[in-house]
Structures are given as C-alpha cells and as structure tokens.
C-alpha cells in the first residue's frame, strides 16, 4: 500500500435524481401510441353518441312515425324502416343497449373468471384440476344451442338475462388466463415475502398478485367487452336477444327479415353493422396499442 494520505477533502456530488417512474412512463408512451389514441378516441366518440344520441333523437325507437321506408333526410336523419321507426333513434338506443349488455357480460365473466382463476392458480392441486375440468366442459358447450333451449322455457328474455348468459358462458377464457398468470406469479419472491410476513392468501392475491397482473387484466377485460358486444349482436341477429328492446343486432335481424338488402334499403342495414364493426374494431386496435405501451419490447423505436 502507498504512503499515508493527507487529510482527505471529499467533495460530495449530488446524485442525479431518478426522474422516470412507471406512471409517467405509461403516459409518455401511451399518448404517443397511434393505435391506442385512435382506438380509444373512436370508442369514446361512440360512447358519447350512445349517451347523447337518445337525448337528441326526435322520436323514440319504438314510435310509429307513420312514414315508412323513408330515405335519410331532414326529418328522419337515417330514414325509417318498414314499420315507420326512425332508424337514427333505433341506432342510438340500440347502441346504448349493446354497450349495456357488453358491459354486463364482460363484468359477470370477469368476476366469475377472476375469482375462480385466482383460486385455482393460487391453490393448485385438486381445486385446480376441478376448475380445469369445469372450464373444459363449459368451453365445449354449444352456447347457441343452450341459449335456444333456455330461451324456449322463458316467457320473455331480459337484457339482464342476455348479459348474464354471456358472462356465464365466456368466463372460462378469463379464468384460464388469470390462472396461468397467478401460477407464475405465486412463486415469485415477493409473494414468499408476503407469506413470511404472516399475510393471508386472500390478502396476498388481492394486494400482491392482482396488481402485478393489472395491465394484463386490463387487456383481458377490454377484449372481453368487445367480444361480449359481438356475441350479443349475434344472438340478437338470430332473434335470440332480449324481447322488447332495440339493439344493433335486432335492427339487423329486422332488416334481414324484411329483405332490406334486396330492396336496397341501405340506410337500414348498413348503419347498425358499421357501428358495431367500429365499436369492436376500435377496442381491438386500442388493445394492440395498449399492449405495446405495457410491453416495452413491442414498441417500435
């Protein structure tokens, strides 16, 4: 070692502050992602339409205005159908219905799927085996047939029924995804730390595991929302939808029944289809964008 030093004078240097953190990262990249901005933007527009539209529409969706098969014009913005309903009014009300059923379906599927997914992913063992079996059975069930069978026993079908039915037939997909993620997260060391801190399993799942899946769960729910709406529209189109309410699917059903396509009554069958496509496509595009934001490896630099 070299000779003894003089009294050292050490000048302290301020360490550069760590500025970037997860949340600001998210907004920074989020607002720059074209897909996310476009998708969310379009969706928000449609939601706005669903909220404001019925308030602005001149007529109720069920009202017989008297004028049949009018072309779009001043009085009837999107024309009327064979029964004299105002298409615009039907459209915006149907939009509301579709959003409502979509949300209900997604919510019930999420709740059931997440609860079972977390439980199975955490415990493993018998519970997991049973859940997998149940999941496989439900996935295999032809939901359309089931809907027809159940529907035939009911005097009328409500929106609530449709929403819950969709939820109960699509939860397996959520459960599987949640289970897989929980499985991989539960062996992480911070989960072991939580166990070593005497925390109970439910608490660990809610506060440690779920938040780490938050971005993933978010994506799952968005996709679920889109598919719920699409599923509801398909059921409605086949006439299996809620009785007595107007929805995008029911509009297309009626247009189909009255051979609107044949008669070139474009203002009847194009708007609901176009709007439905826009609703679901916007969500999917936003979803892809969101995935890029959450997953830095997908970002194009």
């Amino acid at each position, binding site marked *: *070692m*070299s*000779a003894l*030093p*003089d009294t*050292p*004078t*050490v*000048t*302290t*240097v301020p*360490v*550069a502050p*760590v*500025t*970037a953190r997860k949340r600001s*990262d998210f907004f*920074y990249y989020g607002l720059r992602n074209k897909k996310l901005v476009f998708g969310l933007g379009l969706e928000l527009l449609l939601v706005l339409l669903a909220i404001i539209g019925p308030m602005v529409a001149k007529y109720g969706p069920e009202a017989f205005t008297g004028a049949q098969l009018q072309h779009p014009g001043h009085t009837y913005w999107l024309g009327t159908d064979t029964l004299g309903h105002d298409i615009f009014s039907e459209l915006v009300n149907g939009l509301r219905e579709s959003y409502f059923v979509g949300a209900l379906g997604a919510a019930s599927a999420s709740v059931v799927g997440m609860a079972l997914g977390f439980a199975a992913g955490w415990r493993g063992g018998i519970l997991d085996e049973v859940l997998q079996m149940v999941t496989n059975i439900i996935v295999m069930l032809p939901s359309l047939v089931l809907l027809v069978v159940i529907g035939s026993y009911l005097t009328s079908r409500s929106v609530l029924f449709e929403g819950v039915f969709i939820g109960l037939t699509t939860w397996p997909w959520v459960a599987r995804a949640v289970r897989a993620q929980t499985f991989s997260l539960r062996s992480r060391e911070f989960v072991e730390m939580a166990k070593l801190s005497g925390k109970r399993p439910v608490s660990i799942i809610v506060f440690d595991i779920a938040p780490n899946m938050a971005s993933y769960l978010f994506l799952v729910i968005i996709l679920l929302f889109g598919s719920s709406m699409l599923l509801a529209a398909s059921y409605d189109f086949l006439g299996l939808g809620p009785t007595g309410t107007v929805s995008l699917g029911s509009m297309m059903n009626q247009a189909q029944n009255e051979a609107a396509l044949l008669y070139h009554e474009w203002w009847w069958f194009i708007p609901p289809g176009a709007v439905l496509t826009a609703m679901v496509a916007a969500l999917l595009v936003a979803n892809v964008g969101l995935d890029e934001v959450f997953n830095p490896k997908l970002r194009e*630099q």
Partner: protein
Amino acid sequence: MSVRVENLSVAYRSHRGDVTAVDDVSFALADGEIMGLAGESGSGKSTIGNALIYLDQRMKATGGTVTVDGRELPISDDRAMRPLRMTEVSLVPQYAMSALTPTRKIGKLITDLLKSHHVKDRDAVLTELRRRLALIGLTEEVLGKYSFELSGGMRQRVTIIMSTLLNPSLLIADEVTSALDVSTQRAVGEMLLEFRDRGYVKSAIAITHDLSILAQIADSIAIMYAGRLAERAPVATIVNEPLHPYTQALIASLPEVGVRHDQVTLTGIPGRPPSLVNPPAGCRFRDRCPFAFDKCLETPPFLQVRPGHSVACWKVSDSRAAVAGRPGQEQAV
C-alpha cells in the same frame, strides 16, 4: 498487437437522454493474451464487450476505433460486421446457458452456424469439432441432444465450443463463470486457458466482476469504474500492488478461504457508483475515495506509470514520475 482499442466511447439512448456508458477507453492486447475486464455493475465493462461485436439499436459508438490483427473493425456497421463475427471476433454472452435455441438439436445448431458463415470444408470443421468436444470430456452424443437436456455447465461449455469453432482472433467472454458452481467454474476457466494455449483463439477478453477468477485465467486486468478505465496492469501487479484507490479497496474487500472474521475484518467501499446520466465532473470515484483532494475535480488522464501499468489517478500520477506515454504502447507481461 493483436487487438487495439483507442478512445472508444459508447452511448445508449434512453428517454432520459443519452447515457455515456463507456467514456474514452483505450487498451491493447498482445497475441495470446487473456485480459480480464473487471468492474462492478454499471461500470461499462459489458458495454465494451458488446461494442466490440454487436451494437444493438439503442447503442451507438460515439468515438474511437477498434483494430483487430491490423484491420479496423467496423463496429458501427452491422452489415459489415456480420462476416467478421465468429471468425474474427466472437462472443460468449452473459447467460450463455440460455443462448442456445431449445428447439433444435446441438448438432443442427452447429451446422446452421457453419452454413451461415459459408464455411466450405464442413467435414474438416466437424472433425475438429469432435476433437474439441473430446478435449472437454464430451462425446458426439451431445450433438444429438437438445440444449435443455444438458446441465448448465455443459451448455456453457458447448456454447464456448461453438463460439470458438471458427478460430476467432478475439474471444469476448462475458461473465461466463458467474452462474456456475465452483467445480464447473474451474472446468470452464481451464477450458478457456486450454483453448488459448492451443491457438483456437488468439486473444480473449474475460468480462467479470470476479477478480479471483481473473487471477486464475487472465494475464492482465483492466479495472473499469463508471465508464472509464481506472487501472490496467499484469495480474500479479493488480493483486499484490494495486495503485488506484478503487482497485485497492476492491482487493481489500475480497474474502479468501482461510480468512475468518475474528482474524481479519474486511472493509467495503461506502457509497454508490455515480449515475451515468449526469456524471460528476472530474474523477468519478472522487466522492467514495479516501484520498480525494481538490485536483480530483479535474479528470485524471490514464497514464502509464510503469511499463505495462497504467492508472487514472492524480494521487498516483502526481506522486510518481509518471511516464506520459500512449497507453497502447504498453507491452503485456
């Protein structure tokens, strides 16, 4: 001189701004020399290793040149580097154990490698391959296996064989012994030495934080701190007579077998390395150095204090008759 790095600087882009990970680094290797590049995390040692072979999109060389066998390496030009990889410069990356594609058999991976480098006489190379496998105690059966069928140490050594199959002039071994058991560490270390002795690689740079491994396999050691070179000397000098305060502190903090806490109390280095986003002026070790004085606010040059021994420290260069020579002229001992 087999390898010559002059004034190399590498920066990478982050949304906080450009970070200069490697700042004006120069060193040279003789033929047959194994140089250890040691430093802690964030010192820039891995970045240098990467710069010599593959700069990804986030990184860019902002200055300096690299010369191998008299020819300059076009490190910033990915295209031009391609034919040189594996033949002139080769890399055994960190976590090499995970670097092998799990869906193809080892033998297939090797033939793919040979094809992509347009190797003409494949049979000769494959015979050589078998010879080398036998050297480390493996048979041809390994070629028919998938990577996950081998143990970690085995995969590591197979990766080294693949990286050196085309006899590169320079091998960069990035933390090749870190995740291994002690006995496998030794096997891998001895393998590197053997390959160098037999001329399968001309020279090598072993990047690691583990000075004791370097004491076994390296001829000389370069110590990095916060993106700059602190000291470079033959291995015996670094271990027994280190001059830079950082090197001294590092050596003093290593526990050795036979030393117990009731006999000797080892000491660490207080503080943390500086952030490279906004590095401090002057010597970067300044605020952790017990010998720092006011001149340290000025960046100390990397000067040769003895043949083969260069240090970047004012205390050292002031108190010695420093020979101001180009660091590249040092002869490896």
